[in-house]
């Protein structure tokens, strides 16, 4: 099934608010095997100039993947998830994501193009606090492998 090119430029509604918690950050840091105190110890994070513990640089994927997963599940897009692999990931940070942040993810499909037998789909996801502060933008390229 072909991917619907008409989705390029589509901006999806923001996700429901996601509350970044100290417990989730600590769980994520443990899962990546990173003992950094900035992810667990509030005093250490504050000594480094943060309001509370901060999240590791790749933590925003937890929030953006949920947002883009919902957007890309639109049956009219025609993406075959069984054939999808992660091609590229980029983050641009205004500041570290911090425990206590309440953020929404807003996904835009920025590009769909052929690469040989594969199709590459790129999304850009803005993470903003519910007060409208842009914290992080994540650009993700996924590759649907050709059969």
């Amino acid at each position, binding site marked *: 099934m072909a991917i619907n090119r008409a989705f390029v430029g589509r901006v999806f509604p923001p996700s429901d608010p996601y509350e970044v918690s100290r417990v*989730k950050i600590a*769980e*994520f840091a*443990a*899962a*990546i*095997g*990173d*003992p*950094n*105190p*900035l992810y667990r110890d509030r005093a*250490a994070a504050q*000594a*480094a*100039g943060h309001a509370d513990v901060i999240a*590791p*640089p*790749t933590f925003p*994927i*937890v929030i953006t*993947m*949920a947002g883009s997963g919902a957007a890309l599940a639109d049956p009219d897009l025609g993406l075959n998830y*069984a054939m999808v*692999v*992660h*091609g*590229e*990931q*980029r*983050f*641009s*940070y205004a*500041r*570290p994501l911090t425990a206590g942040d309440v953020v929404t993810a807003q996904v835009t499909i920025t590009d769909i193009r052929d690469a040989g037998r594969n199709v590459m789909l790129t999304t850009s996801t803005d993470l903003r606090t519910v007060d409208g502060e842009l914290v992080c933008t994540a*650009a993700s390229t996924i590759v649907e492998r050709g059969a």
Partner: protein
Amino acid sequence: MSDQISYDSVEMGAAIPVVSYPVTRLSLVKYCGASGDFNVIHWNERIAKSVGLPDVIAHGMFTMAQAGRFVTDWAGPRAVVTEFGVRFSSMVVVPDNDAGASIEVSGQVEEKLAGNQVSIALTARSADAKVLTRARAVVRLP
């Protein structure tokens, strides 16, 4: 966690020595739970092999997280990451044994930028394959 480095002390072209990070099946199970990415190719050998993979493979984002740890450990607690990007060029294959696999990350100071920022070019390898390309982080240093 490492000592703090300063912008002034960083030299362009300086090499950041390789660090090896282990990855086992348990790492992947934990990463599935923490990230919410339960794609079966990261924990089910039978299905991974049935879709043409050599074995269970690590999440690309797990590998990227190791590269992130390499950067933040080098840069120190008062550094802040402002940009981080990678391309996933090869799989990290994780066998069902006690040793698992390893990801070797190294880096080089690529450029000193305005605003006390430094860009780091990263290399990540596993089982002799280059698993990340175009991998780069920018950190703001004190």
